[in-house]
């Protein structure tokens, strides 16, 4: 059972994008950072649960030549083994900052060439990140998708059989599973079925994907075999998170939490529904667990100028 906690107010409402909430859990103390895209700007918040004090910072998308202001498409904290970077994407390019958003360390312009603005090539860019400083370099471009990338999920390689540690998803619903390394290798492709896959997660060799028709599907990462199909929502999924529970949020105003396990006899993936929450009249656009045990989560909604929080009782 979960109950509502105090909401965190935002300076501007959340934009109708998918995966529109990023949460950085800091290992020391109870401090958490939240990131939400408003439109041309992204808001970063640090909320200390003890005294509830809030530190806000607003980041703007880098302007380019063009008629309308640049809109940010995603804000995300990338937790690397030795460093945390804050990444802002827009259709003009990729900006990387130090984790608190104070300094921009890298800018990569996406050249659209002769194509009219708005055509997306489906390229996945791989960057080499040094332990410190701005010496970030584009190391590789992965070809595998034909339409725009919607989400990328990663997991440290476990050892044992599973050698897949990156999954990319696109607008056509296609999933590509990769093994990282000095050069990335494509492990398997999981075809779409006519709807976009806005959100994907990777956990212990399982790919969890949320689709535009409200379905959540779980696949075995190495071979791409479908193991579970859930008719989870009545509208497009907007966000997934794995903590070890699976969290799904959709434009139908619902958030659901699912328990994942492996059957001891067959080893196949099993799912059980744990909890559902309805956020009335709110088209959700982001959802994340706020701690590693999954005992609390936060959601954002279109037109809503606050981050809603829930914690288990």
């Amino acid at each position, binding site marked *: 059972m979960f109950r509502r906690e105090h909401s965190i107010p935002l300076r*501007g*409402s959340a*934009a*109708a*994008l998918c995966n529109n909430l990023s949460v950085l859990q800091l290992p020391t103390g109870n401090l958490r950072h939240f990131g939400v895209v*408003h*439109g041309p700007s992204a808001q970063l918040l640090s909320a200390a649960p003890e005294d509830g004090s809030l530190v806000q910072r607003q980041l703007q998308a880098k302007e380019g030549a063009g*008629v*309308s*202001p640049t*809109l940010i498409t995603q804000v995300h904290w990338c937790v690397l083994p030795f460093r945390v970077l804050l990444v802002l994407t827009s*259709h003009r390019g990729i900006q990387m900052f130090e984790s608190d958003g104070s300094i921009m360390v890298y800018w990569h312009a996406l050249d659209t060439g002769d194509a*009219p*603005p*708005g055509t997306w090539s489906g390229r996945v860019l791989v960057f080499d990140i040094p332990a410190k400083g701005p010496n970030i370099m584009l190391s590789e471009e992965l070809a595998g998708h034909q*339409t725009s990338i919607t989400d990328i999920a990663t997991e440290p390689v476990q050892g044992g059989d599973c050698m897949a540690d990156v999954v990319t998803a696109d*607008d*056509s*619903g296609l999933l590509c599973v990769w093994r990282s390394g000095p050069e990335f290798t494509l492990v398997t492709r999981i075809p779409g079925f*006519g*709807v*976009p896959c*806005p959100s994907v997660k990777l956990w212990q060799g399982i790919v969890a994907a949320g689709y*535009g*028709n*409200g*379905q959540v599907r779980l696949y*075995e990462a190495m*071979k791409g*075999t*479908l*193991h*579970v*199909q*859930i*008719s*989870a*929502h*009545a*509208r*497009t999924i907007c966000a997934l998170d794995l903590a070890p529970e699976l969290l799904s949020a959709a434009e*139908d*105003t*619902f958030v*659901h939490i699912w328990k994942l396990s492996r059957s001891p006899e*067959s080893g*196949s*993936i*099993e*799912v*059980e*529904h744990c909890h*559902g929450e*309805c956020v*009335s*009249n709110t*088209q959700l656009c982001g959802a994340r667990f706020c701690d590693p045990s999954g005992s609390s989560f936060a959601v954002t909604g*279109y*037109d809503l*100028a606050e981050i809603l929080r829930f914690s288990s009782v």
Partner: protein
Amino acid sequence: MSVRTLPLLFLNLGGEMLYILDQRLRAQNIPGDKARKDEWTEVDRKRVLNDIVSTMFNRKFMEELFKPQELYSKKALRTVYDRLAHASIMRLNQASMDKLYDLMTMAFKYQVLLCPRPKDVLLVTFNHLDAIKGLIQDSPTILHQVDETFRQLMEVYCGLSAGEFQLIRQTLLIFFQDLHIRVSIFLKDKVQNSNGRFVLPVSGPVPWGTEVPGLIRMFNHKGEEVKKIKFKHGGNYVTATKEGSFELYGDRVLKLGTNMYSLNRPVDTQTSGASKNSTSRAQENIAPNPLAKEELNFLARLMGGMEIKNPSGPEPGFRLNLFTTDDEEEQAALTKPEELDNKVINIQAMQDQQRSEELARILGELEVTDQPRWSTSKGDDLLAMMDEL
């Protein structure tokens, strides 16, 4: 964001505008033989609608509209509708035009938000076009223009993927972000709450292509289903029975985008300082607009394709009031909050001052003291050029 959004935005907002004008003109309808010189008749109503529809669906204008391009600001788009609303003998003063635009935008925002599938926004557009054809059915030339646009829509949009429609939907929602004006017909029907937010139902048919939530299916490594369990979703959904038609004629199934106004359900907005006052809206008006020059160029190109039929002869402009009384209209103009002062190019003012003394008087009362930033000599040249179109 999507570069294919503008035609859908323009046509649907235009459709709502026609529904509202049609309803107001009917409400003020006086039988032809009994009408005084300054009162609206059925003939006048049909003429106004014909003029606006034929301007809206003009071929050159549609060509410009359908070019892949980003969405422009709300201000720039509003100017196009100001011009369109005055494509005939009808005149609207600032307060009525504001109200008209508020109603149009909130109605389409509602329709986009409630579309079951992103692709259904195309059905909403078809609903508007079907109704527009009904309004001008006595004019075969204009009907042909509308059908041409229909075909163009089908050509451009029917082949788009679900992902592209999702992007179009997101682009539209970003355009409508933070607009929470209360519309009394929505409040009465309980589709909008008193805080201005729309009600999102969790019951009814699921979108076409979606299953009713509640089932978990598990498979083994051979792809055979080994377990099936149900869970309680929380909503009250049923299967969709039929898909709407994307053909030139057909049952659209979806009701969004059909005419919700009638003589018994008049148009009305409720406004209050609180609901109109949102941070991002205020910011949009206060911050200087560096894109103004680009927008003026866009408007010049777009309206270059608009052939406005200037009524000839000594006919005065007929004024249409969107409020219930003239006093209400004047009150609304005077009580408009500061930060919403319209910085839209007032092309109409320059044209009509020669035509209508009364309008000039009203405009004089509504004179905005803060001149728009781009009302420099360069801006004036562009304005003058547009007036000559």
